[in-house]
């Protein structure tokens, strides 16, 4: 039998190690089945050696090749597996623990949470903790607490803003009503001023009427004085006539006086003209007395008429003055009373309203003060939180 050269044997050994079945090795190397069996036996016996490789390793390599072929894997993929194996070994997961580790990983991973996502989430969590210098639970608790605090403050702020808006809405119509009241008050004051002016005019008219009355009274007094004077004059004339009548002087008496004068003139030797002059002088005196009497009568009539007129005028004036005064007084008093009553009522109502406005204003002022205090407290609290956070530095 011809000896198979060593190179051919090594080729057969290579195919053997690579896990090819005997049929393939026959086709590839061009040797018979029996020769392949012999070459493998030589390998097992150690008569055929591959430099640097023991037979155990040869078997291992063939077994490895078998397994790779069986699983349809390439050597590069096997190399990747080796890399993974090394990594597992660095975290002290030995081969006998690999299956358990795999089972545990499968068990831990939820169906709807892929391993990749799980790993990425863990990495992000780790970065977050490093960045903040705090554990995740602390960060989560702080977040929840701060969010609750923010929600609480937001709720309070919303409530305060709502209250503020409601108050503004309530104050607006009130302010409009106050302005309306102010306008009404001004109108009433104007009305009161007009009534007061009318009252002043009535008083002025009353005063003028009083002055007219006093002037007429003065005239009446003057007429009365003139009447008294004329009366005294007439009295004196009447006295003279009374004396002539008392002495019984008549026409016959006058003829006798003429005769007496003529005779006397003759007897006494006094010229007629002189005696006539004396006589006419005496008649003149008599005429004067008659004239005076007539004038006295006329004057008396005038005086009586004046007295009557004065009385009438005085009565009329007094009546007019009295009536006018009474009317003016009554109207004025009535108007003044009504105005006073209205003004008093309005004053009472406005005073009452003003008291309510003051109370409401006082309450609103108090509310504003407490609101200001609240804002101050909020600022103080915020400052306090900043101070605490600032001063609680890590040692």
């Amino acid at each position, binding site marked *: 039998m011809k000896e198979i050269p060593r190179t051919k044997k090594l080729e057969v050994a290579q195919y053997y190690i690579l896990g090819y079945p005997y049929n393939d090795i026959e086709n590839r190397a061009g040797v018979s089945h029996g020769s392949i069996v012999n070459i493998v036996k030589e390998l097992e016996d150690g008569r055929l050696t591959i430099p640097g490789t023991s037979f155990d390793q040869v078997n291992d390599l063939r077994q490895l090749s078998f397994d790779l072929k069986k699983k349809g894997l390439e050597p590069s993929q096997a190399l990747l597996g080796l890399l993974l194996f090394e990594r597992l070994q660095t975290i002290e997961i030995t081969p006998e623990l690999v299956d358990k580790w795999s089972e*545990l990983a499968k068990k*831990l991973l*939820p169906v*709807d*949470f892929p391993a990749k996502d*799980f790993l990425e*989430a*863990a990495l992000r*969590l780790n970065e977050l903790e490093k960045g903040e*210098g*705090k*554990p*995740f*639970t*602390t960060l*989560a608790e*702080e977040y929840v*607490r701060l969010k609750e605090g923010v929600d609480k403050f937001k709720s*309070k702020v919303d409530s*305060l803003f709502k*209250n503020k808006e409601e*108050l503004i809405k*309530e*104050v607006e*119509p*009130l302010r409009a*009503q106050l302005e309306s*009241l102010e306008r*009404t008050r001004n109108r009433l004051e104007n009305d009161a001023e007009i009534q007061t002016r009318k009252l002043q005019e009535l008083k002025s008219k009353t005063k003028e009427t009083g002055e007219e009355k006093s002037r007429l009274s003065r005239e009446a007094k003057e007429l009365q004085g003139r009447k008294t004077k004329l009366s005294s004059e007439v009295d004196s004339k009447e006295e003279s006539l009374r004396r002539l009548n008392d002495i019984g002087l008549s026409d016959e008496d006058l003829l006798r006086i003429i005769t007496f004068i003529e005779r006397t003139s003759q007897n006494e030797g006094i010229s007629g003209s002189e005696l006539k002059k004396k006589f006419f002088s005496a008649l003149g005196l008599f005429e004067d007395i008659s004239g005076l009497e007539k004038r006295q009568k006329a004057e008396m009539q005038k005086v009586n008429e004046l007295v009557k007129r004065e009385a009438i005028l005085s009565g009329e004036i007094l009546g007019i003055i009295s009536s006018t005064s009474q009317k003016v007084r009554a109207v004025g008093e009535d108007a003044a009373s009504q105005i006073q009553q209205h003004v008093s009522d309005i004053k009472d*109502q406005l005073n*009452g*309203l003003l008291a*309510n*406005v003051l*109370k*409401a204003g*006082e*309450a*609103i002022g*108090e*509310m504003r003060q*407490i*609101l200001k*205090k*609240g804002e101050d*407290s*909020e600022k*103080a*609290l915020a*400052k*306090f*939180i900043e*101070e*605490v*956070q600032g*001063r*609680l*530095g*890590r*040692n």
Partner: protein
Amino acid sequence: MSDSRWTHTIADLKKELTWIESSSQGIVSRLEIIQQETEPLKIEFLKHSLEKEREALAYQRGLGLIIRDRKKMGTGLAVAAGGLILGGLIAKDKNIALKAGLSGFDGVLEGFGETKWAVLLQKELVIVPYDAIPAKGTWVTLESLMAAIDDLEIEASEGKQLGTLDNIIQRLQQSRGKLIYIGPPN
């Protein structure tokens, strides 16, 4: 305007003014209550901040201990983390599972770092473990400081004004009956 309308308007105005007055008084009372809550809030926030600072320091301290002595702590921590994550998964929610697991893990870390604490009650509030108290400064125990702060919180809830953080620190410094002073280790 007729007398009846005038009277009616005045009566309406009085009613509205009375309503405004009572509403304002109601708002005033509510605002007063809110304002009264401000002072206790300060104390509450101070306590909360001190506690959070202590927890953060304990966490860091626990982490430091693990890094320093990994072999000793490693197994225990791995078991704790795995177990806690598994526990979270029972809830069938991936976020809850992750959060619950890591939360428990953090708790374990905090537990490793927990110790007694001291506070430097001066301008700056500094918290340190007992075994790291610096030589300078006057230090009080965190527990005694918390007790003193509780007293202040009672006063604040009764309406007392506490003022700024400086005022509060000053008042706490004067709570000598409550505070327990400690000196630096020899």
